C-alpha cells in the first residue's frame, strides 16, 4: 500500500482551520488517498459510515460546491508537493541530468498551486490556506530518500487525480484536473526510471477504491 510508505506513513499536514481539515479528509476519503497525511483524526465507525453514505449520495448531490471541495483537496496535495520539491531541491544533492529532470517538477507543482487556487477563486470558492507541513527526519538527508519519497508521492498524486475523475461534474474542471494528472504521470514515470523502479506499473492508471481507503486510514493516522 503506497500510502504506508510515504514519509514512513507519518502524518505531515496540519491545517489552520478545522473546516480545511474536514474538507481535505472528506475528499481524501472519497478519492482514496491522502488521508494519512493529516494529523489528529482517527475516523470512528460512525464517521466511516458517514463517508460511505457521502459516496453513495455524491453523484446525486454533486454541485459546483462539490467540485470546489475536490479542487481544495487537490490544492492541498499540490501545496504539499510544491513544498516537498522546494525543500528537496534546496538540500542540493542532485546534479547533472537528475537535477535537470527534477527542477521542472518543482516548477510544475508551483504552477499547479497557482492554477488550482485561481480556478477555485474564479468559481467563487475559497481556496484553502497552505497547511503547515512537518516532515519526519531523514526525508531530505540524501538523494535516495528524497527520490524514493518523490516516487511514492507522484504515484499517489496520479492515483488521487484519477480517483476524482468520476466525481467531478464540471467539464472545465475535469479538463483542468486531467491536464494536471497527465503531468503527474510524467513525473512519476521519470522518477521511477531514475531510482530503478518501474515507470509503467499499470497499463491503465489506477484509482483507489473506498474500501482500500477505509482499510488503510485507521491504523496510520496518528
Amino acid at each position, binding site marked *: 500500500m503506497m500510502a504506508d510508505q510515504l514519509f514512513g506513513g507519518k502524518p505531515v499536514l496540519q491545517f489552520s482551520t478545522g473546516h480545511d481539515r474536514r474538507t481535505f479528509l472528506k475528499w481524501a476519503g472519497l478519492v482514496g488517498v491522502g488521508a494519512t497525511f493529516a494529523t489528529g483524526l482517527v475516523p470512528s465507525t460512525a464517521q466511516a459510515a458517514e463517508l460511505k453514505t457521502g459516496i453513495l449520495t455524491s453523484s446525486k448531490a454533486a454541485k459546483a460546491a462539490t467540485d470546489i471541495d475536490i479542487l481544495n483537496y487537490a490544492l492541498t496535495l499540490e501545496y504539499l508537493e510544491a513544498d516537498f520539491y522546494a525543500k528537496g531541491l534546496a538540500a542540493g544533492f542532485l546534479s547533472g541530468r537528475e537535477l535537470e*529532470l527534477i527542477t521542472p517538477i518543482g516548477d510544475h507543482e508551483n504552477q499547479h498551486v497557482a492554477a488550482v487556487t485561481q480556478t477555485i477563486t474564479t468559481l467563487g470558492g475559497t481556496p484553502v490556506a497552505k497547511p503547515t507541513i512537518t516532515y519526519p527526519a531523514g526525508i531530505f538527508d540524501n538523494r535516495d530518500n528524497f527520490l524514493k519519497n518523490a516516487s511514492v508521492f507522484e504515484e499517489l498524486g496520479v492515483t488521487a487525480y484519477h480517483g476524482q475523475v468520476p466525481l467531478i461534474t464540471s467539464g472545465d474542471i475535469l479538463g483542468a484536473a486531467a491536464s494536471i494528472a497527465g503531468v503527474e504521470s510524467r513525473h512519476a514515470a521519470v522518477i521511477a526510471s531514475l531510482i530503478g523502479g518501474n515507470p509503467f506499473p499499470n*497499463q491503465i492508471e489506477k484509482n483507489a477504491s473506498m474500501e482500500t481507503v477505509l482499510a488503510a486510514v485507521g491504523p496510520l493516522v496518528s
Partner: protein
Amino acid sequence: MTSISSARADFVRGQLDQVSGKQALFALNNRWALASKADFANDIDVLNYALTLEYLEAAFYQQGNAAGLLSGTEKGYLATIQSDEEFHVTALFDTIKKLGGTPVEKPGVGFGDAFASRDSYLTTSVTFENVGVGAYLGAAGFIKDKGVLQAAAGIFGVEARHAAVVANLLGMPAEGGVYKGAFETPIAQADVLAKVTPFLMSQMGTVPAGGVQTGGGAAAGKDQTGMFVLGGAALLGAAGAAVYAGRHRADEATDQI
C-alpha cells in the same frame, strides 16, 4: 488571444519550452475550446477514434521492437510500452462491444524509415505518444459515461508516462522534451488526424472508411490538401504534419476563441 493561439502552434512544433502561469491559466480555463461539437456524436465515436490510434501505436511498437534496435533497460521499457498499447487495443475493443457499438477495423499502417535506427525509432515514438496524450485530452470532454471517462483518463496517463520516459532515453531537454510544461495540452481531432495520416496513408492510399474520420466534416476536407503535400517518409511526414497542424491550429484557434 493571439498569444494563446501562437503558443498552441509553437507547442505543436515542439518549440514551446514553458508556458507562463498566466498562459497556462488561460489555457486551463479554455480547456475545451479546441473541441468542436461536431467531432464526436457519442462515446462509441470517441472510443473508435482512440481505438484507431491504439491500433496504430501497437503496430508501431510491434514492428519497432522486432527490428532489434534496442538493448538493455530501454529494450525492456519499449517491450512494456508495446504490451501496454496492445492492452489498450483490447480494452477499447471490448468496451465498444459492451456498449453495443462496432469496433473499427485495424487500419493499414506503414512507418517509412522510422525503424532505420534506434534514434529514429525512439524519436517517432515520442511524437506518437505526445499525439496520443493530446488526443485523449482533446476527446475527453465528449465522453458522457463516467466509466468510459475513467478508463480513457487512465490510458491517457499511461501514454504520458511513455512519452516522458522515451524522451528521457533520447536525452531530450527536460522541459519541452520530457515534460510539456505544467499542464498537458489537448489536441483537436482534426490536428491529430493530420499528424497520424501519413502513417495510415502509406499502405492504404486512403484513410480507412469508418476509421479515424468520424465526422471530420469540413476540416477533414481541408486536410486532404495537406495529406498529399506531406507524403514521403513517415518520420519526415510526421514532422511536416506537425508544422501543417500548427498552421491549421493557429487558424482554428483564431476561429474559436
